């Protein structure tokens, strides 16, 4: 469930407001968006994926809110770690592994 909009990182682009399929965020004039409807979060991580500055953190628990501290998440190196799941399409660098599904033989 979404737990963090980092005020130090957020550039108020409101991309998360647009891409969240569940309409969890609300835009705020001249400020970072707020998590307005956390109960509706479906833990799909799309907001994290689209955030251009890695300002968001979705905690792994889907059914209950487990608040996180920004300092701890920052230290863990997890901010932005969902990006490897997508964006192979436009990333020229190799940080984003090529899809290897075809090598996985049926077990």
């Amino acid at each position, binding site marked *: 469930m979404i737990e963090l909009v980092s005020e130090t990182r957020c550039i108020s682009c409101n991309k998360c407001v647009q*891409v969240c*399929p569940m309409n969890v965020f609300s835009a705020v004039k001249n400020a970072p968006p707020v998590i307005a409807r956390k109960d509706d979060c479906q*833990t*799909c991580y799309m907001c994290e994926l689209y955030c251009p500055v890695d300002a968001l953190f979705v905690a792994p628990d889907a059914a209950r809110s487990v608040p996180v501290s920004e300092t701890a998440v920052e230290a863990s190196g997890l901010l932005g*770690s969902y990006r490897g*799941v997508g964006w192979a*399409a436009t990333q020229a660098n190799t940080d984003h592994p090529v*899809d*290897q599904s075809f090598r*996985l033989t049926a077990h």
Partner: protein
Amino acid sequence: MSVIRLSETIDSNAASLVRDADVLVIGGGPAGAWAACSAAAAGAQVALVDKGCCGTSGATASAGTGVWYVPPDASKRLAAMESREKLGGYLQDRAWMGRVLDRTYESVNLLAEWGYPFPHDDNGQPHRTNLRGPDYMRLMRRRVLRSGVFILDHSPALELLTDEAGAVAGARGVRRQVGDTWLVRAKSVVLASGGCAFLSGGLGCNVLTGDGYLMAAELGAEFSGMEFSNAYAISPAFASVTKTLFYNWATFTYEDGTPIPGAASHGGRSVIARTLLTQPVYCRIDKADERTQALMRASQPNFFVPLDRAGVDPFRQRFPVTLRLEGTVRGTGGLRLVDETCATTVPGLYAAGDAATRELVCGGFTGGGSHNAAWAMSSGFWAGAGAADYARQGVAASIDRRLRSARGIALRANGAAEFDPGALVRAVQAEVFPYQINYFRTADGLSAALDRLDRLWTGVRVAGQSSADRVVKAREAAAMLATSRFMYRSALARPESRGMHKREDHPRLDDAQRHHLVSSGLDEITISRRPAAERAPQEMAA
């Protein structure tokens, strides 16, 4: 019919945003995106509305999917069709399977042309049987926009509108981030609103509450195969990630670490369900060697995200798992199609993706996204073209028709009090989630649940208009309720086990029941039978 009696003419300017289109597409997942592109390519002016955001909404965008992509080689195609027929309970239609294989091959190759980065193997050969969700759907959104389609994001549709002859003539809904309403007058409508996963928390699936089923049912549309609606996916108990491939390398255990006899992702999922009735089930992905482990991370990195964040190493540590209901998202029931253009039984209304029945290609079972993904891109393509063609015909050529509302649940200003959507959601979930009712089906269990669901329907059908801030959730809750009643009414009408529909009291497949179950109606649900397609000679010999 109650629909007609309740109809009333509405002012076509009765919304903050009014727009005309030849074709309106409801839903912006893969089926809706392909439908919009295909209708636009056929020369139609197209509008697309999405409850969330076209490009991120739905099961595909967040989860990713395999694709039933088979080169046009006769023996490979035949093997691809035959391999699934027993699983699906012999309800597939070879002609439709062939069409879907052809269309999927074309569409996936188009994706490559459009720049989707399919991987190549060490010999330089491309592999096109898997799509990463975020990349695929971001590309599709761009294609939709490039086609000149008008997109309304965060604009849930509340109801379909009809003309005086009963043909579909548009839809209306709300723009939830603007706080106002929209109305699109259209000559035809494609429902690509997805299936119903009952807010069970599967990856990306909470937008899929069966909204399109309710809207179509209010116009008297027919459904097919709604008994095939009890797919359950494995996920970590605490997490949302319902990606199940890697559980093929897993050992499932009791709390004390002892393996559960017979428990497996394939062919032993019911053992997991039965164990979960009385105690937690744990799992460790312990059958993957180091090379496979690395490939897994590079194949489906999202599988690992919640585990990594929870500090669980799934190859070395066991973690609790659960089974989440995916309803008709990974089931196969949906709106019945009457021809190859994906027309439904309502004039002017087309259906694609999980909104439509997938029995034609999958029968009564899907093992995962692969066939559904092929179906979404194929049915979307055909429905968009079919809707564009219909829009050009004389019968619908006038956009200036008097619009009628069916005034369905939560939309009737009758002076009665509104209902509590949250309470209704919980009441429906209490009937459809439990394995003892929906996984292990019996006449007694289904009948008792259906009685309770029918009573819920009787209660909400007389409720008043929902307030603006609750109407979307009220319609979602009503859609879940309608879906659950189609499910269980159909499940009771199939006293046998076929595909994913398993009856504890009728554990065998009955050759006399190789037919489709068609359901329709809301206050009273009627069930009829339609013959399944002729079985291919090879199947008969097998």
